[in-house]
């Protein structure tokens, strides 16, 4: 109600501010549009503008490429595995940390923020040097381990935020009414955090699918989709294929993000109405 009346009284934004805001938005979306445009370009080995012509031919060509399909398949496998591990470990960590105070709790919280706070190269080279020490050759599993580590942080952050918004009296009410800990988890806690888990999982999936910095250290000869793309940049002959794959990758990561946003959106409204 209040914000409505406030907005009613609010004068329209000054022109310069509107210009800056819309200009910024245009800047943010311009490269995304460019990627989409070039995917349909007929030109085979350069980026000249204006575009030369429209074709759907490169989609066919790209999907016929064995290396493209392999890279997609590897990225999907890694992202799925990392997401599952992250859901389990991140969910457990959030459940353990959100309401208890114990010695070392702050240290653990700081530790859990490290993979996000420290640059990816640090995580990457740390893992790589450890794999080398352990005489493990980089393979699918080393990529998975790297990804699960930062994906776990994403899930943890999402779930603990939801836990903090959930009044603990719900858990107490459930136990008070005769539900034991496991029943309480199943009937009260899980429904409350389900969308946060899902949103965290979706974000983790997108993050893993897109990750490149840590992966360059832990992948060895394996090529995830982003690494495949990175390698393509030095190959002018493959430009049209690269353009098409770039657009597909972009669209593939956007879908889950929209989904995650929708998932957290609705519950925030519900949680807000409780207060």
């Amino acid at each position, binding site marked *: 109600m209040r914000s409505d009346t406030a907005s009613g009284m609010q004068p329209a934004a000054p022109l310069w501010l509107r210009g800056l805001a819309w200009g910024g938005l245009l800047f943010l979306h311009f490269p995304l549009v460019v990627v989409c445009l070039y995917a349909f370009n007929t030109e085979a080995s350069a980026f000249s503008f204006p575009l030369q012509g429209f074709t759907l031919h490169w989609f066919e060509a790209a999907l016929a490429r064995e290396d493209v399909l392999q890279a997609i398949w590897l990225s999907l496998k890694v992202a799925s595995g990392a997401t599952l591990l992250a859901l389990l470990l991140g969910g457990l960590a959030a459940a353990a940390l959100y309401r208890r105070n114990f010695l070392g709790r702050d240290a653990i919280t700081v530790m859990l923020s490290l993979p996000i706070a420290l640059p990816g190269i640090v995580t990457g080279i740390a893992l790589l040097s450890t794999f080398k020490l352990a005489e493990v050759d980089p393979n699918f599993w080393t990529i998975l381990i790297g990804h699960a580590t930062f994906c776990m942080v994403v899930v943890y952050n999402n779930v603990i935020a939801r836990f903090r918004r959930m009044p603990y*009296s719900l858990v*107490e009410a459930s136990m*008070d*009414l005769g539900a034991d800990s496991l029943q309480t988890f199943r*009937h009260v806690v899980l429904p409350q955090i389900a969308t946060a888990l899902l949103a965290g999982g979706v974000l983790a999936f997108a993050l893993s699918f897109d990750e490149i910095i840590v992966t360059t250290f832990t992948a060895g000869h394996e090529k995830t989709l982003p690494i495949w793309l990175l390698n393509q940049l030095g190959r002018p002959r493959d430009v049209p294929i690269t353009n098409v794959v770039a657009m597909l990758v972009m669209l593939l990561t956007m879908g889950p993000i929209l989904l995650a946003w929708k998932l957290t959106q609705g519950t925030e409204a*519900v949680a807000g109405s409780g207060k």
Partner: protein
Amino acid sequence: MTLAVEFSQISRHYDAVRAVDNVSLAIADGEFFSMLGPSGSGKTTCLRLIAGFEQPSAGSLRIHGQEAAGVPPYLRDVNTVFQDYALFPHMSVLDNVAYGLMVKGVAKSTRLARAEQMLAMVKLADYGMRKPAALSGGQRQRVALARALINQPRVLLLDEPLGALDLKLREAMQSELKALQKQLGITFIYVTHDQGEALSMSDRVAVFNKGRIEQVDSPQQLYTQPRTAFVADFVGGANVLPAALAETLTGRAQACAIRPEQIYFLSEHGAGLQLPGQVLDIQYHGAVSRFEVEVAGGQRLAVAVPNGQTLAQYRPEPGSAVRLAWAPEAMVWLSEQG
């Protein structure tokens, strides 16, 4: 008389904070018992100890004669109405009420039928399919009550259940709760910081202060015979005369309480106990006016004078010098402690 709940020298400490400090208490079966005190006085912690959400640091807690230490909430024959109602937001009102039966494994049709009955009892028969978010505060409060009662507990704990309601609804709910308790014949343990609420509903009231119990008595006893300065002040806002002042008046060096309505103004010298003073302020309260009077030694006393009496009464102006008087029986001698 069987005991519903018995505290023997219970303490509950959080690190250095003594939330509950050596409390002993016996609550009879079928009693409407209130725990009254300011926030942070330990009353809610006591309730949570009974519910099983907290464990005592020391002492023994018995519920219906059985030691409760280490017994989880779901194995106690006690249910709670929470201050924030704690309705499960993802379940319908009916499922909320039926929850206690569901986790016990009662068949679906049976438990939903029982839940309908409980909703009818709290006059919400048509609201079963709604989500809690679609209810008003007063309706949520009733759902919380129905949900807590469906397991037919022998003790119902209520944690400031009317705190979030407006005044009129609160008063209506007070008499409903009292009637419900009579009808069910079970023990109600009611936590509140509102002395009016505690006095109007309870069989007995325990007044909490700083983790300790100051006095446990019937509402009338608490009001007319407070034992400590804290109770005298917190329950009904009595004046507390310090021992030194009392000694100059009566020769007895002991603190005492005098209710504002038992003090009157003397226009001239008369009999009885008298004290000169000066009127600082007058507050109009509808039925009465409250005069704030400063007497010797900077001590301030409140004097309540009924308004709208047909009998003309002496009403001094602010700033005027007055003489206060009261009957010696009006002084309630307080114990040293508190």
